[in-house]
């Protein structure tokens, strides 16, 4: 076998939300599209496209309503997704 072997990063030590193959979800310029399930103030319950639910701070895009698509980064919604665009 030639060349360096594939990286085997221990998810426990690397961070459960950071997979080296799929990109850094937290600290980079990566954001995740989610759908609002239950609007609240200042947090809303949102669901990503894989079905995972979490609490998201929505102050920067408020007001929001159930069904709306948002872009979240670091647990905070930074934009509304414009579906028509």
């Amino acid at each position: 076998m030639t060349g360096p072997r594939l990286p085997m990063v221990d998810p426990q030590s690397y961070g459960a939300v950071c997979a080296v193959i799929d990109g850094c979800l937290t600290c980079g310029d990566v954001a995740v599209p989610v759908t609002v399930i239950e609007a609240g103030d200042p947090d809303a319950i949102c669901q990503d496209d894989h079905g995972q639910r979490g609490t998201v701070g929505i102050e920067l895009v408020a007001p929001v309503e159930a069904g709306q698509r948002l872009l979240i980064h670091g647990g905070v919604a930074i934009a509304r997704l414009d579906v028509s665009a």
Partner: protein
Amino acid sequence: MRFVDEFRNADLARGLAAQIAALAEPGRHYKIMEVCGGHTHTIYKHGIEDHLPDTVELVHGPGCPVCVIPMGRVDDGIAVAKRPGVIFTCFGDMMRVPGGDGSLLDAKAQGADVRFVYSPLDALKIARNNPDREVVFFAIGFETTAPSTALTLMRAKAERIKNFSVICNHVTIVPPLRALLESPDLRLDGFIGPGHVSTVVGCRPYEFIPKDHGQPVVTAGFEPLDLLQSIFMIMKQLAEGRSEVENQYSRVVPWEGNLKALEVLAEVFELRPYFEWRGLGFISQSALRLSDAYADWDAELRFEMPGVRVADPKACQCGEVLKGVIKPWECKVFGTACTPETPIGTCMVSSEGACAAYYNFGRFARSKERAGA
């Protein structure tokens, strides 16, 4: 999957690649910089470079927030993390960034209470649940991430949570772009502008690039077709002799940005007179610190830190990689002494770092290319 599949259509990608090739002027070499680490990741992961003509070269920029953190700031964080009674929190990638004497992960192995969080709001929750401990959040990131730290601090202030503080390493995107444009060893033809940073700051801050330097900027999304279309838009501007800021990522990026987020940033932060960037050196007014109104939550005022500037390891060429002067594989330690498992330089730590992205996705294609040659 909605918002994904339609941006990965192979036929459309081939069509765009052909249009890019048609726009390339014979005998001219094009250098286009993707500023953002997320774009670097997409380029390698989807093999975008393989679909471009040989004369169109993508240069990887300084837009990975982990990669630009100097070693001295990591050491400052570790010094605080090792203090008794401190719960030190940071994002996952930051745990592995080597400082002068180990990483935060090493500090954790030695007994420091270091925890990774998905959001600074989670760090605040830890503070709420541990009133007898000092909870410190090591904040990194560009304008995409700074609003989440700002909101967290606003909530801490509103709730009067006193056992929470932030080491602020937030940086801003425009000053390093200015520094790169003024760098004599780098000639570029255009920029693929950052996507989610622009969600917050909008497209207006990039207007100085075409105006003062005559180069096109296209703000781009993160899917393969987004990047190919952005490269096409840059090539079209160059072919038509235009230089403007254009927005390819209009489904997410408003031209004016997120005004509420900008308001929040202005309240919580102020510009530092200067800040050290790994590989780029000290750049004036390129980073944020907490404003006077939030001084009570500023860990740099609360804790004593070494504040020592630490030189990068001699073998490490992250600086040249970050400036786009060399490609990752041209670094002497790439893939041998420096791998994602045992990174020497920060570019190998984060998956958005050019070296890690290339190591994971590009090196096999390159070894095939070399074998063919």
